[in-house]
């Protein structure tokens, strides 16, 4: 069975869009983190697809860099969330209103 590479790219676009809308719309910080992960993985899927299309191993190597960075980012993000919400009941972005904007 052969699948056209365009389908993979389209899936990447869909995942990326879901992630982007999620970050902009959802108010729960943890869900926002998950949406960012979705965006990064959409990029990874696109990297791998293009690497296969171009017969270039480079694109697949780039995925590892992105994976490592994504992991580091989540560690720091969760650390910040824990530091902030230790005193609060829930993790909602709307509660963060000490500064306007």
């Amino acid at each position, binding site marked *: 069975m052969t699948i056209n590479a365009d389908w993979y*790219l389209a899936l*990447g676009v869909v995942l*990326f869009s879901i*992630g*982007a809308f999620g*970050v902009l719309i959802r108010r729960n*910080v943890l869900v*926002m*983190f998950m949406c*960012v992960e979705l*965006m*990064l993985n*959409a*990029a*990874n899927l*696109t*990297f791998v*697809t*293009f690497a296969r*299309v*171009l017969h*270039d191993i*480079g*694109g697949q190597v*780039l995925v590892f*860099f*992105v994976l490592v*960075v994504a992991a*580091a*980012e989540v560690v*720091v*993000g969760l*650390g*910040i*969330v824990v*530091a*902030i919400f230790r005193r609060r009941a829930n993790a909602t*972005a709307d509660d*963060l209103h*000490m*500064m*306007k*904007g």
Partner: protein
Amino acid sequence: MPTLHLLATSSATPTIHTPHVDYLSILPMVIMLGGALFLMVASSLFRKILSVGTGTLVASAVSIAALVAALFQWHQVSTHGAQVTIAGAIAFDGFDVFIQIVVAIAMLLTALIGDGYLRREGVEGPEFHVLAMASASGAMMMGAANDLIVIFLGLEIMSIALYVLAAFNHKRAESGEAALKYFVLGAFSSAVFVYGIALVYGATGSSNLPQIADYLSRNVIASNGVLLAGLALLLVGFGFKIAAVPFHMWSPDVYEGSPSPVAGFMAAVAKAGAFAALLRVFVSSFGTVRADWQPIIWALAVLSLLVGAVVALMQRDVKRMMAYSSINHVGFILLGVETATARGVSASLYYVFTYMFLVIGSFAVITVMARDGDTGNQISDYRGLARRQPLVALAFAVLLLGQAGAPFTTGFLAKFGVVSAAVDTHGYVLAVVAMVSAAIAAFFYLRLAVTMYSPVGLVGNAADDGGDDEASAVAGPVGGDGAVSNLQVLTDAPPTEAVTERGLVTVPGLTALAIGVSVAFTLVFGIFPGPILDFAHQATLLFT
């Protein structure tokens, strides 16, 4: 199994060729990162022996070592010319070395300012310096990167450390809030940036900048949707990092909430790194498709110039005002990017260099003025500062005038450089917008300067009855009566209680040194601009 078989039968042992690593080309960032790791390990091993001062000492020594290494690099580049090293991942040219020098100096100044801040706020710990050095090494990597994925790595090393630095003052709830806002938007912009890299990779077949440039020059692309989408997403990612309008909404909150030395570091180093990468990617690599991206940069520049200047007028908080002023400065630097000429790049570099001193110096004064818990940050708190502490007021006035672009300061030449570069490429509209916004911006810088030098007569009344304070506090933030009355409230309101009660602020010696260096640089090289202009010009000549 087949590979084993192959190994056994082939006559010669297969060898793996690793790329040659030219360590000189990455020496400053290796020193920076090594210093950060050393300090972190040493501080966890000898936590009881190490004082705050030790952290500052190590950070300063490491910054100076990185600066010296960068000067060696400069010598190497100016004698042997630009080259690409480490399998094409690192560009070792004048542009790279320029950024290394800017970042190393910014790190040195921040270490000096951070020392006083950490002691005052009682959040001592070497982690501040560790994170700042890690962040600086990321910015250096962005300046040196010659591959989109290396730029991404530099961006993340820089940003992740900055997220934590923004949250560093755990005693203030605002600090954590700033960190979370910065983190969510930073992570979002990084993801957009990575997707942009993926699309550019797909369209050109490489993530290496010279190879992309090579591909674009060999293939005439009329309208490649994937490439254009990739370019747009890269620009969005950069736009968030440099805080250009309309991607600026995080910056006022983050500047207000972060510890003041961190805000200065953010404004100087994060912008230096992001602009370095932006210039290298767009001017050098996507130079052949400049017709596609120049209009976007044009729009970003105009919006940043106008929104930054106008909204800064409305701010009561000095740190928020500085945030909008920094958005305004971003507009000016984008002017140089938009031209996509050697002159524009050199003007942008000069702007980044001089702005680094101006903004770190300004935030050093704000750090000192804020007192315990970062309280006295209202513009009205600066009223009568010249009477109380003439030297601090004078230093701040010079830095503000520098940012406003007054003659005989580096700020004037910086603004003149980018505007004349824009005029060179017939960007008259852009030049006019820039000058109008400079005039608007001069107003709020001067307002703060005038506030510092106006008499403090109102303070006595306010101290007598607290009702006065409340009345102005109620009238102030509503601002329904229009801009004029709002402006009056901003400057005429008496200082808050925190300021009137404690009187003079103490200026730690190291912070005073950092402020002094910034002021001296601004004035000396404002009057004798030659060396720095030449430096920026040569850095551009050696641009690969």
